[in-house]
């Protein structure tokens, strides 16, 4: 079942086309990653999906009653605004103690409830944002460069958490990332975006695609193979699978 279907989406910002003729769909419980260079419209696409950006053309269809959890890019909280993690999780609606406790535990941030948001490290902050997105028991989790500013072990741990969540909660994940090597391996499908959809498919398929190589070069290949080595689950490979990766494992 498609949770979200995008047909022929176009967005113009200040007269400039940012996205043109984008088609995209996200299925139940799949992890879809959007990659693309700076200014390729990745964040704009996510913002259009959550309703923060009005499309200039095309349409976005959500499944009826779809529950979406959204993790924004690093959030800036003005230092003059005092707010604890607990209070932050109670926005925009007050929720029961059990609800926010469970969400914090799921996000791996169970011990942070009483801490001021301003005193959290980058990784802790992202986990709190993740906890917030989990509170309405989402069917679709949307993450916008959620690991910006984290070091490599930190972001790898974060993405492992996402995979665990997908397994435990059965939610679909749509995310944007810069960290090609980590994200490519953790995704079911990858969409390479540069104002339009350049190519899409399984990570192996996209990594081989000419359009992808033109944007990112071939340097990420080795890292992809290395990363896959750490994972003991198997992906359903597409038809364009390159078996040389398996050899590296």
């Amino acid at each position, binding site marked *: 079942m498609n949770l979200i279907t995008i047909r022929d989406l176009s967005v113009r910002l200040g007269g400039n086309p940012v996205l043109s003729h984008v088609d995209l769909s996200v299925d139940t419980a799949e992890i879809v990653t959007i990659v693309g260079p700076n200014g390729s419209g990745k964040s704009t696409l996510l*913002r259009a999906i*959550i*309703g*923060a950006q009005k499309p200039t053309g095309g349409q976005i269809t959500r499944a009826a009653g779809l529950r*979406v959890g*959204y993790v*924004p890019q690093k*959030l800036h*909280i*003005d230092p*003059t*605004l*005092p*707010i*604890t993690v607990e*209070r*932050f999780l109670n*926005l*925009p*609606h*007050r929720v029961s103690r059990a609800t926010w406790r469970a969400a914090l535990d799921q996000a791996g941030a169970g011990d942070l409830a009483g801490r*001021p948001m301003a005193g959290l490290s980058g990784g802790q902050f992202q986990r709190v944002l993740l906890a*917030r997105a989990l509170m309405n028991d989402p069917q679709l989790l*949307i993450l916008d460069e959620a690991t910006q500013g984290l070091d490599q072990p930190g972001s790898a741990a974060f993405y492992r958490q996402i995979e665990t969540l997908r397994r435990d909660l059965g939610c679909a994940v749509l995310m944007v990332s810069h960290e090609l090597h980590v994200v490519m391996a953790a995704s079911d499908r990858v969409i390479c975006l540069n104002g339009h959809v350049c190519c899409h498919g399984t990570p192996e398929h996209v990594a081989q695609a000419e359009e992808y190589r033109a944007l990112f070069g071939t340097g990420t290949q080795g890292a992809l193979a290395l990363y896959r080595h750490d994972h003991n689950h198997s992906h359903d490979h597409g038809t364009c699978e390159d078996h040389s990766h398996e050899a590296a494992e």
Partner: protein
Amino acid sequence: MTFLDDFLIRSALAGLGVALSAAPLGCFVVWRRMAYFGDATAHAAILGVALALVFDTSVFGGVLAVSLLMATTVTALSGRAHTMDTLLGVMAHSAIAFGLVAVSLLQGVRIDLMAYLFGDILAVSRGDLAVIWGGAGMVIGLLVWRWQALLTATLSPDLAHAAGINPRREQYVLTIALALVVAVAIKVVGVLLIAAMLIIPAAAARPFARTPERMAGIAAGIGALSVLAGLRLSFQFDTPTGPTIVCVAAVLFALISAGAALKGQTAG
């Protein structure tokens, strides 16, 4: 004969009305970095005074209309222009300049300009008191009603969108509240010092607070304390009341900030 016959009690009640509504709104002004926005709206009020005299309507109505116009204009522009800081500077100061010129052009009307620039709290009538508390009640009601949505939109417009809240709408809620506070406070502290009643208590409350609600509550307390102490001191030393209230708030802010800094040093 009631206790409202005493002008000091009327002044105190007027000041408290302004303090209790301005302080929580001031927290949003501080959190959202809208200090200049408050200035521009307040300064436009003097133009409202001139227009009210020309059209022979109530000063409250004139001030409210012009402040609302100014605040919505600035809010509408803030979505587009990137040079907000400059734009607000231009609007804040030209609003007061045009207002002063307009007042001087009024034929046959003699008004006490100082009373509008710095307030005239001791001359508050029973009617003024009703207007002040009516307006203050509306501001407090508006903030309580929209509190959760306002906080969410302040933290992140995108988070608000994702939760089905329109941050633009919340911005307009603040805009209306701001215009109301300006219209209510002009009699008490005057257009030049309204922004001070918004910002200083909120800033002074920050070191004590761990949650937004606590900060708003403490800010209201500091605002109320400043009003009462300011009234008392201005009576004792025969100083202008509006500025004396702001002085008390500023001294409280300085003491609290110094205390917080010292505590931070010893703790660190």
